[in-house]
């Protein structure tokens, strides 16, 4: 029996091609998704191993809420699905900062080689050899204060480490990308403006940096900018410690633990610091990074499931064809004594073979896919060194999934072959389809339940925003509170999607009547024939459409959300933004003061409004202390730049009067109302007189010591009669004292943090989405709690003089900021598109997904049509015999395919748009304030689906026409 199966398989190979492609596609997504995840994990591990390579880290011992940068990115994009995963810091949790002076304490612990605070400066821009700013897809440019021994995994390959502000050392990737070599001079844009720098060295790291441009800075320079950026002096997030136990090599985990224990003993109790092993930090970081990247795999897997789902019924269809054609053969086998099981086996053997071949190809394809992605990323500037080869378990999973799906797909036709009584098998009778109404009822019930779940979800979201009770039943309310919005949303979506798939066969007849209305009036005969043909096997039609349904549902749901996000953002710009231009730093950092001056001096400028961010501002005291992004604005903000969308109070008046203007989100989080008095804790950096005096005294003492020492040596040499040596020493003495005279007193200045507390009144609450999570105050108020060291200009809003030529002004502005590289001037439209550029990235992913589901759907439609054509050979022959032209047959099948495609697409759109509307409503408070349904896009999808159907019908129609009319109608 197995031999018969194998022989049949060889005979049917042509038939299997499509099934093999489907299985291969499905399996390739499965394997590819695993492979991709492993590659990313591997990359993360590699990067952590070389980037966080310390043996012991000393960090704060109390966890803190994060405040600044991440939430800024999320709120300004106005979208829930923020893609800031790339920026997800390698720190999973935030701890209190610790005093860098602990370095001395730690350095003296036995077994410590070096202990240092490594300062990192973000938002730098490196100017490449060609005079343009270097940027890559991979991410940001960052500078680190590096010197010998501060970063063990970094190996200097050329030159030396930077020792001054005008020197830099480049990572190999950075040097390559920028086209710079040791000795070249270029410009580096520091947060406060560009500076001429010389490349003094190049270093390499074991792992690639995934496209990040890493610049080694002079440690002192790095420290200075780090303090500016963080607004904190003399503190660091963590200190890195290298141990000496392994002679310069990384310590083992035990050695790390011993060293950490020893350091912990040495740390003073009031330092609020704790030493942890490097391994534990790496593990934590790896876990959090991997979690952040974890969303990618399920996304790929969804499409793997669609592909396999389609694959399974392509296989069912294919085997149905094969079984139908071989029915006489099976009947013969049965009549000479083969058992049903044996007949089943002959079919199952073919399925297993097909599954093996398909999975094998799929594994290779998945592997190639990940390799392709990696190659593509490398070309776009994000080289990955993570391993891309699938593990044995990946391959096994792929193989098992592939074979299992094939077997499941083939089992129904195989069963039919096995169970058919020999006599019935001889006669070619088509059994009428089982009624579809039970499925209709079950599907409808599931959909109703799903809609209820969505309604509950909507209600919970509404209550969360507006207060009140979810329902009159308290027990239900408790349940709703514990569930939140996520669960009902997900359960509802799941029920509706499955409900539609279950219900679909019952919808085929009414739908094809409706969708077939136009074709059956335009093409009277072919249209009607096509429409009726669809209702013949409703399940098959519905399954074919289901593939497109799921894909289109996902795509239209995302489409609605993306479009709403875009509209929500555009809404601010359209209705709110009044200024002609905006300027911001492309490195997401501050705008240099010189650049601001240059803009202000540009001809034709009327007003320039500065938005300055205040570092480290908190509100309240004690346990209620909460941080919020705080900006200092000019009093004219609301009249010249943004029209306020006021929730309570008078925003314009409040700002002018020095009261706080609070974003709705912040107000809600803290329970503030207009008129409330709030304690504002600001931070200022001031000169520490005592420390400065001490530093100067220390320096003088040190110089004096050196001179005394040299004088003593000179005297000794003189006594020994070495006049030349003594003279040299005298020269040295002169040099040291000259240096001491010439030293810049500024380097002696020590600064410290001072916290100021001011009580302010909440004057207004506004809900412009850009300001939702911010607190605004005017410049005067801000100056009371912060000074120039803790306030940075983030954005400028520029108005031209009335009647001026805006295009000309824009050109002049761009020229004015050109020397600063990082400042980007945009007019109102460009500003709007910047705000929605992330949304566009989502849309790009969306189109990729759409293309994928279309490809899969085409396979499904082609296969289903091929099966129905093979079942209708005689009928099509008859139609030809009574005068139907070839074009009419093609037309009939084209209409059938198009209706299937439109059916799936319309179902998908209805469900997807509904899901999008619900999700938008649920996350309304998170910035999706405007509902926008992308009708044009949906119309394109619909048109596309018709096209897809027509394309899919080409090959089955050709097959139908290839059959000679005679074969179809001859009685034997």
């Amino acid at each position, binding site marked *: 029996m197995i031999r018969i199966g194998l022989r049949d398989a060889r005979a049917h190979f042509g038939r299997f091609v499509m099934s093999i492609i489907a299985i291969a596609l499905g399996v390739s997504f499965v394997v590819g998704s695993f492979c991709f995840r492993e590659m990313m994990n591997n990359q993360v591990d590699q990067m952590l191993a070389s980037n966080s390579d310390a043996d012991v880290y000393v960090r704060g011992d109390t966890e803190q809420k994060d405040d600044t940068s991440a939430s800024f990115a999320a709120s300004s994009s106005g979208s829930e699905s923020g893609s800031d995963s790339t920026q997800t810091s390698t720190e999973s949790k935030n701890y209190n900062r610790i005093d860098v002076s602990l370095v001395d304490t730690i350095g003296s612990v036995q077994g410590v080689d070096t202990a240092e605070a490594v300062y990192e400066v973000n938002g730098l821009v490196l100017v490449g050899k060609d005079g343009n700013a270097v940027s890559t897809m991979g991410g940001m440019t960052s500078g680190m204060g590096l010197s010998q021994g501060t970063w063990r995994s970094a190996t200097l390959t050329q030159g030396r480490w930077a020792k001054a502000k005008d020197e830099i050392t480049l990572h190999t990737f950075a040097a390559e990308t920028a086209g710079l070599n040791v000795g070249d001079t270029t410009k580096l844009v520091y947060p406060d403006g560009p500076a001429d720098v010389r490349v003094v060295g190049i270093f390499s790291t074991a792992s690639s940096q995934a496209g990040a441009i890493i610049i080694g800075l002079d440690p002192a320079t790095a420290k200075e900018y780090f303090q500016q950026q963080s607004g904190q002096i003399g503190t660091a997030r963590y200190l890195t410690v290298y141990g000496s136990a392994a002679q310069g090599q990384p310590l083992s985990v035990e050695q790390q633990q011993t060293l950490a224990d020893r350091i912990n003993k040495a740390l003073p109790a009031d330092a609020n610091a704790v030493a942890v092993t490097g391994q534990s930090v790496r593990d934590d970081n790896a876990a959090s990074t991997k979690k952040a990247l974890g969303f990618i795999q399920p996304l790929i897997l969804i499409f793997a499931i669609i592909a396999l789902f389609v694959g399974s019924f392509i296989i069912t269809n294919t085997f149905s064809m094969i079984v139908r054609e071989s029915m006489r053969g099976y009947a013969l086998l049965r009549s000479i004594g083969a058992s049903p099981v044996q007949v089943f086996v002959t079919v199952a053997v073919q399925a297993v073979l097909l599954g093996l071949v398909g999975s094998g190809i799929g594994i290779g394809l998945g592997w190639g896919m990940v390799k392709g992605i990696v190659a593509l990323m490398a070309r776009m500037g994000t080289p990955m060194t993570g391993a891309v080869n699938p593990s044995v378990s990946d391959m096994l999973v792929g193989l098992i999934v592939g074979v299992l799906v094939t077997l499941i797909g083939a089992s129904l036709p195989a069963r039919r072959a096995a169970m058919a009584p020999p006599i019935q098998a001889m006669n070619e009778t088509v059994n009428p389809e089982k009624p579809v109404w039970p499925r209709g009822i079950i599907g409808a019930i599931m959909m109703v339940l799903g809609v209820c779940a969505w309604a509950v979800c909507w209600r919970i979201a509404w209550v969360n925003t507006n207060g009140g009770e979810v329902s009159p039943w308290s027990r239900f309310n408790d349940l709703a509170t514990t569930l939140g919005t996520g669960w009902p949303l997900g359960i509802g979506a799941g029920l509706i999607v499955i409900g539609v798939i279950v219900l679909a066969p019952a919808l085929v007849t009414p739908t094809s009547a409706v969708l077939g209305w136009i074709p059956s009036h335009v093409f009277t005969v072919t249209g*009607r024939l096509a429409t009726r043909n669809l209702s*013949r096997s409703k399940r098959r039609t519905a399954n074919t459409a289901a593939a497109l349904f799921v894909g289109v549902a996902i795509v239209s749901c995302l489409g609605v959300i993306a479009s709403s996000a875009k509209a929500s953002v555009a809404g601010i710009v359209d209705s709110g933004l009044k200024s002609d231009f905006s300027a911001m730093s492309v490195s997401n950092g501050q705008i240099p003061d010189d650049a601001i001056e240059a803009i202000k001096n540009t001809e034709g400028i009327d007003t320039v409004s500065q938005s300055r961010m205040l570092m480290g501002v908190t509100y309240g005291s004690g346990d209620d202390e909460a941080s919020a992004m705080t900006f200092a604005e000019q009093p004219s903000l609301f009249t010249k730049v943004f029209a306020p969308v006021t929730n309570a109070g008078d925003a314009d008046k409040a700002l002018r009067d020095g009261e706080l203007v609070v974003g709705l989100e912040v107000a809600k989080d803290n329970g503030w109302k207009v008129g409330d008095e709030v304690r504002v804790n600001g931070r200022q950096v001031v000169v520490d007189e005592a420390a400065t005096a001490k530093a100067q005294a220390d320096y003088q003492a040190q110089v004096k010591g050196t001179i005394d020492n040299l004088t003593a040596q000179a005297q000794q040499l003189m006594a020994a009669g070495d006049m030349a040596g003594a003279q040299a020493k005298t020269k040295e003495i002169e040099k040291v004292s000259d240096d001491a005279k010439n030293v810049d007193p500024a380097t002696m200045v020590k600064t410290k943090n001072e916290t100021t507390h001011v009580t302010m009144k909440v004057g207004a609450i506004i809900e412009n989405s850009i300001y939702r999570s911010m607190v605004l105050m005017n410049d005067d108020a801000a100056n009371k709690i912060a000074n120039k060291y803790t306030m940075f200009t983030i954005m400028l809003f520029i108005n031209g003089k009335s009647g001026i030529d805006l295009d000309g002004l824009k050109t002049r502005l761009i020229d004015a900021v050109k020397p600063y590289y990082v400042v980007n001037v945009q007019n109102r439209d460009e500003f709007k598109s910047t705000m929605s550029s992330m949304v566009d990235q989502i849309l790009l992913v969306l189109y990729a997904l759409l293309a994928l589901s279309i490809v899969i759907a085409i396979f499904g439609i082609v296969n289903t049509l091929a099966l129905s054509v093979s079942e209708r050979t005689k009928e099509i022959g*008859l139609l030809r015999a009574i*005068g139907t032209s070839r074009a009419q047959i093609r037309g009939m099948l084209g209409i059938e395919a198009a209706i299937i495609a439109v059916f799936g697409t319309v179902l998908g759109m209805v469900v997807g748009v509904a899901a999008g509307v619900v999700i938008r409503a649920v996350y309304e408070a998170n910035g999706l304030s405007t509902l926008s349904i992308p009708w044009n896009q949906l119309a394109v999808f619909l048109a596309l689906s018709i096209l897809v159907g027509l394309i899919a019908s080409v090959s089955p129609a050709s097959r139908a026409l290839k059959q000679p009319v005679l074969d179809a109608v001859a*009685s034997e």
Partner: protein
Amino acid sequence: MDDHVVAQAIDLTKVYGDADNRVLALDHVNVEFERGQMTAIMGPSGSGKSTLMHCMAGLDQPTSGKVIVEGLEVSAMNQRQLTKLRREQIGFIFQSFNLVPTLSAEENILLPLQIAKKPIDRAWFKQVVSVVGLEHRLKHRPSQLSGGQQQRVACARAMMARPSVIFADEPTGNLDSHSSREVLGFLKQSVQQYGQSIVMVTHDPRAASYADRVLVLADGNITQDLRHPSYDRILEVFADEGNEDGDAEPNA
């Protein structure tokens, strides 16, 4: 060509298979089918009777020779011309599987006209339907009709377009004797009343006895050409043929 000839085969030869495995299905056949007559083609299995009809109807390409229907050379036609021929000149009746299952009886009958986008002659439709006795079955689907009824629908469909000639391939092959008589009676009636030309392949002598003319084929040659033969005469001829060839079919 004479106006009384509706279809004609000239030196028609059909060879199946390759050089090693040659089967001569038709061997230089010359025949004329007359207008307004029912012609039956008889012969044992493999005699070439079906091949002759398929070639005449343009369903099969002859190896050599000519087929002419209504003065048009069928054997030289391309697909487009064949489609036109089927729409305008030829009607078909098959042994089985001859109705579109998704269409009602009425829709099946009207299908050829609709495919050809020709106007429907309602009076003619009523007449045809009443002749075949399907007035009360028009809304039924083929699966709701008996075999005889289905074949009557097929006859009505073939008649509807008023083709020059109807080719019927074993029209009674799947029917019981009662239904056979009904269908044959209807075909005969259409010849006598409306002057329809019919070419019918059959190996049922009873069916052949309804014909105006019976052609007997053996080994690709026409061996007998009988005018208005009686049932007994046909049986007699067949008995002779059987004796000569030794492989005559048992009478159905």
